[in-house]
């Protein structure tokens, strides 16, 4: 229970820190009103009112009427208040479950997130499933015969997969499987789960293959270290089969770096798959974040930040739980 409470405090701290930085940056670097009222947002209405700037209404230019719109919008979004108060107001809304509304189309941010997040999570999950399913057997096979031909070839292959950038791999897969052989759809289809999964196969592969290469390298190295341990010699001296020794004795003690990096990568994938989402036209969180950032649509950006920060903390908590499952020595007396 104490552990859980400590995690909750950590979650709150991380979310506050991340959103405060985002909030400040978004408000300092751009003008959010631009997307609400258009170019007039940039006009200095005080100067127009004072007659210092010519009122060019009727010619598609600025008018006092437009200035009224700007003032109204300012009022609506509380933009005339100081930054800390506005941040405080935003946090208050968040606690009540209100993420605010997007500047773009006045859609509630929660609706945007509810629409985008599941797709990103599905993509993330598939990518990690592919990565683990590929890397674990691969590393076991390579470490079992370390420094032999298969291991050496694997190392070269892994470096190749790591060196190939996401967008290149994505485009190559897209060309062959979508354009040339037309096995997979060219854009995300949302009819049912099977269709969704099918349209995510290629993007998940694109994300998963470099991950698999990373996991392979980590697990192979750790396995080779573990296989030098005394308890492996002892397991051998008991007459156990090599397969049993690999799976039941060597694998678990070798998984710590893999689990750590797995957690970090998974958390990074929640909103970080934007290039792949772009190539395969998936309306995921990453793309929403990019579009919102460009438009200074900070309610959406902040909403996404909350989701990503929460995901990060939650996944790292899960990783710690996995550690204690893996190693009884880190288990706390509960």
């Amino acid at each position: 229970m104490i552990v859980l409470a400590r995690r909750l405090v950590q979650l709150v701290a991380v979310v506050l820190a991340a959103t405060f930085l985002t909030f400040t940056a978004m408000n300092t670097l751009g003008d959010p009103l631009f997307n609400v009222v258009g170019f007039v947002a940039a006009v200095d209405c005080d100067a127009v009112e004072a007659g210092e700037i010519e009122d060019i209404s009727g010619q598609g230019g600025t008018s006092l009427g437009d200035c009224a719109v700007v003032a109204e919008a300012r009022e609506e979004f509380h933009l005339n208040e100081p930054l800390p108060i506005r941040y405080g107001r935003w946090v208050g809304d968040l606690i009540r479950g209100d993420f605010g509304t997007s500047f773009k189309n006045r859609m509630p941010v929660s609706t945007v997130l509810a629409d985008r997040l599941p797709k990103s999570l599905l993509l993330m999950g598939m990518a990690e499933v592919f990565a683990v399913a590929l890397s674990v057997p691969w590393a076991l096979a390579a470490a079992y015969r370390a420094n032999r031909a298969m291991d050496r070839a694997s190392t070269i292959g892994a470096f190749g997969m790591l060196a190939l950038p996401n967008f290149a791999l994505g485009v190559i897969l897209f060309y062959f499987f979508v354009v040339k052989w037309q096995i997979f759809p060219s854009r995300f289809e949302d009819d049912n789960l099977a269709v969704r999964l099918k349209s995510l196969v290629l993007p998940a592969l694109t994300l998963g293959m470099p991950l698999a290469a990373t996991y392979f390298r980590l697990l192979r190295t750790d396995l080779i270290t573990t296989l030098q341990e005394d308890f492996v010699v002892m397991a051998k001296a008991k007459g156990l089969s090599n397969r049993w020794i690999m799976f039941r004795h060597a694998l678990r003690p070798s998984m710590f770096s893999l689990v750590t990096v797995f957690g970090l990568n998974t958390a990074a994938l929640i909103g970080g798959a934007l290039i792949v989402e772009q190539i395969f036209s998936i309306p995921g969180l990453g793309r929403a974040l990019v579009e919102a950032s460009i438009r200074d649509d900070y309610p959406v950006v902040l909403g996404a930040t909350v989701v990503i920060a929460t995901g990060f903390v939650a996944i790292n908590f899960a990783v710690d739980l996995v550690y204690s499952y893996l190693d009884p020595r880190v288990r706390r007396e509960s």
Partner: protein
Amino acid sequence: MPDNVANSPLLEVDDLRTTFTIPTGDVKAVRGVSFTLDRGRTLGIVGESGSGKTVLARSIMRLNLGTNVTTTGTAAFDGNDVLTRSPSEMRQLWGSEMAMVFQDPMTSLNPLVRVQRQVTEHLCRHLNLNRSEARQAAVDLLREVRIPDPDTRLRSFPHELSGGMRQRVCIAVALACEPSLLFADEPTTALDVTVQHQILNLLSREQADREMAMVLVTHDLGVVAGRTDDTMVMYAGTVAEYAPTVSLFADMRHPYSEALMRSIPLTSFPSHTRLAAITGRPPDLIDPPTGCAFSPRCPYVQDHCVNEAPPLVEIDDPAHRLACWTPVGSPEALTAFEKNLAAGLPQAVAVDVSTTWSPTGGVDG
């Protein structure tokens, strides 16, 4: 074990040589060792670190892992050479016929696996026991190695046990399938002195009860004394002296055996007695000396020793074999010692200043 082979030796090792190939050369860790071990008998292998005793034991068990190891010679177990067996044939032998207790119980148990699985996993394999039978067998085994409350201990992880307990678990693992040959590779080196004695007694008792042959590897002559039938003193990968333990202690002939004996502190020594350590270091096994490997550290060294390695030959008592040109107590040894002392050879001087020992009479007191 079948009765028809009962009169042939259980283990017959002939000219065993083990070499590790490393970037700087070939490390000749074992350089031609031969011995036989009968059923139910015990052999102590004694030597300092790097003398090849552990490598010898692991070579016979075929447990030198890695691709850079070559072992030649023969090691016949029950009449069949172990060194030519296939990996799957070895797996039949490991655990069920030959077992090993390792040096460090802190690292030889898998820290992430409960004791129960570590004790039972090979039982299921070798003896075809089901889960509950294997569990019962594990409880009995733990009880036999004097672990209190075996039911609780089976659910423990190794880190929840003390060093002595862990070594008892390792012994239980080794004994589980009733092997006919047990290697105990420095089983007490990593343990507290108070626990060492208990573990050695446990091993001796189990060995006697099960009529199991045992090879006890140690760097401590005191460990083999009174516990083994025969003792083999190894130096630099070769056998220096091999004798029934009783006659070895009665009549230690190799200068190295004598030096090991001399370096054991005795409670009868007056306080602040300078311990007679062996001067120098073991030889480089990549390029071992042509003569006697001990000659650079031997107080009785003469020119002949440096030029030609002494063969292992039987001396007066036919069971006592020795590889030395100037056996302890021989007139040649005395002459050589006085000459070396006069010449100021450090190893002779070191022996001379040690007040606890004299070159003619062994350890005083």
